[in-house]
């Protein structure tokens, strides 16, 4: 091992930035940094350290993101509710408050030092396994998301399939938690969670099938690559800017809300009905793990939505391409997370039967029609001129028509009322 490796790397840096956007210095910075670290090591170890480094980076970046998403959620919720939210927690060993940025870490320290209570009648093994399994599967889903032009942790041919397979396993963990706790509320919540997650698995899957159909690949990098470029240098070629893509994105996000147990689909942990649902008997760090896993799930699903519909790491306009791709990814991610929080602050919760009815009678038919719509879209790719307008018209109609009709059916018997007065 010599010093030459790292040094040559450093010498190459300015040269790298002279090339196109793909090779811009900032764009390559993570790779450069990684290679700089591994260049200190002997060749045979490099692949191992490379993967360990990716894991470490993903865990720390998303761990930090989790911490600050919770803080952002508390602060944004506060702002929406006319109050500032946590802002007084000082940085440890100092008196600096710094807008309460240390708050999530205080919560972390507190959770770590909290007593871990396992109820007497609980299944101890499952009670312990549930949060671990949930967290493990949530983290596994991070492997295939392309975070930047050169940043895909694992290149899989069937990356999308892997993502949803790993994501579906979390249902098991929620049921384990509810079952193992030996608490009636937990059990009810576990039942709810199973019904809900399985119901929404279907629209979630059906929502991304059109993307695969159009992009012609199950690989996440290729799906992102299919969304490159701009129409007239203005409108990006993202899937969300097509009628079927917009519908698919909406369905995907609704299903993602349900899959990640977020309001208005937070039935398993419905506070006003089931105390804390499947989390009722969890305390201390196990509870924190659950919490973390749920946020990880939310982040991963948002990341996948970006990959599938929002052009992945692509910049929205060619004029801002100099900003590195991973920054765009993070920006889009933040926007989607903000949406999650905004929705949580506004909506009440659905009832179980309404929730499943919404999935089976509204989202699934819409997603199926949307699949046909996407097929039409990809078959009619060569239409041009006035036919292009016709193509758009048909496609929009195929999205809006069923939405209105099914929506009317869904909200039958539910309408604002007029009241009479006695004088």
């Amino acid at each position: 091992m010599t010093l030459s490796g790292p040094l040559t790397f450093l010498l190459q840096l300015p040269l790298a930035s002279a090339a196109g956007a793909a090779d811009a210095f900032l764009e390559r910075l993570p790779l450069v940094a990684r290679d700089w670290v591994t260049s200190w090591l002997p060749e045979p170890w490099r692949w191992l350290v490379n993967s360990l480094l990716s894991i470490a980076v993903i865990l720390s970046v998303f761990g930090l993101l989790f911490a600050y998403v919770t803080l952002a959620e508390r602060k944004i919720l506060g702002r929406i509710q006319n109050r500032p939210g946590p802002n007084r927690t000082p940085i440890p060993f100092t008196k600096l408050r710094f807008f309460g940025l240390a708050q999530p870490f205080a919560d972390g320290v507190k959770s770590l030092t909290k007593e871990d209570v396992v109820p007497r009648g609980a299944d101890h093994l499952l009670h312990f396994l549930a949060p671990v399994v949930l967290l493990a599967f949530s983290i596994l889903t991070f492997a295939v998301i392309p975070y930047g032009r050169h940043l895909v942790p694992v290149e899989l041919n069937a990356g999308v399939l892997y993502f949803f397979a790993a994501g579906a396993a979390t249902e098991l963990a929620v049921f384990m938690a509810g079952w193992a706790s030996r608490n009636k509320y937990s059990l009810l919540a576990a039942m709810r969670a199973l019904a809900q997650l399985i119901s929404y698995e279907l629209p979630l899957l059906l929502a991304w099938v059109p993307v695969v159909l159009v992009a012609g690949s199950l690989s996440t990098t290729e799906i992102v690559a299919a969304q490159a470029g701009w129409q007239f240098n203005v409108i990006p070629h993202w899937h969300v800017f097509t009628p079927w893509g917009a519908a698919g994105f909406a369905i995907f996000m609704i299903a993602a809300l349900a899959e990640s147990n977020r309001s208005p689909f937070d039935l398993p942990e419905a506070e006003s009905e089931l105390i804390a649902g499947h989390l009722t008997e969890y305390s201390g760090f196990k509870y924190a793990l659950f919490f973390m896993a749920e946020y990880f799930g939310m982040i991963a699903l948002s990341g996948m939505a970006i990959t599938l519909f929002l052009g992945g790491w692509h910049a929205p306009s060619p004029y801002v391409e100099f900003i590195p791709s991973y920054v765009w990814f993070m920006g889009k991610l933040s926007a989607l997370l903000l949406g999650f929080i905004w929705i949580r602050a506004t909506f009440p919760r659905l009832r179980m039967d309404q929730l499943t009815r919404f999935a089976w009678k509204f989202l699934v038919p819409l997603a199926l029609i949307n699949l046909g719509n996407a097929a039409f879209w990809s078959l009619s790719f060569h239409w041009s001129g006035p036919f292009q307008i016709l193509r758009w018209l048909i496609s929009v109609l195929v999205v809006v028509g069923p939405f209105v009709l099914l929506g009317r059916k869904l909200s039958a018997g539910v309408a604002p009322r007029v009241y009479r007065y006695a004088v």
Partner: protein
Amino acid sequence: MLGTGLLQGLGVTAKNFVGSFHDPARLTTIEYPEVKTKLPEAYRNFPFLVTENATDPMGTLRCVACQICEKECPPQCIYIEKSKDKKPDATGKPQLFPAVFAIDTSVCMSCQICVEVCPFEAIKMDQVYEIATTDRFSALLLNREQLAKSNAYYHEIHPTEAAEVDARLAAERKAAEEKAAAAAAAKAAAAAAKASPVAKPPLTA
């Protein structure tokens, strides 16, 4: 159409979110330990005893230990023991005073009935609310020394009410003085009359 109500709701929350950055009506928080709410004059928390004079609080208590408040207090949280001897009050009239005056703030319900029934304007409501403590027994039982606060303090927390009370007391005092003066004059006249042999002997001995 399905979803319009939901979108309107999102609009309201967005309006509040944006409003919280520029509209004080949408960010109503008082940063409590640093900023404190301006308490209205009428605010009441626990009773205190008014003293005329801050330098000698025990000597100038207005309370004459008549025990009316003790009887009327709904949760019975006042305890008074009358003194054996009398002390002159502000008008110089000898009055009893409370040898023991205790209020159990762990029972008091801040209802202000003691203030309303007090004929001597001696007990009033305080406005201190930062009294959280780790000690239930001794810290929450207020004795005579802890309860006594000066009239100036009373003016500070309830200015309008205190001014009215002072005016009323001054009027009463004046009336009492006039009455005393009149009585003294009558007495003098009576004495003068007694001195004169023609007059009838006074009825009272």
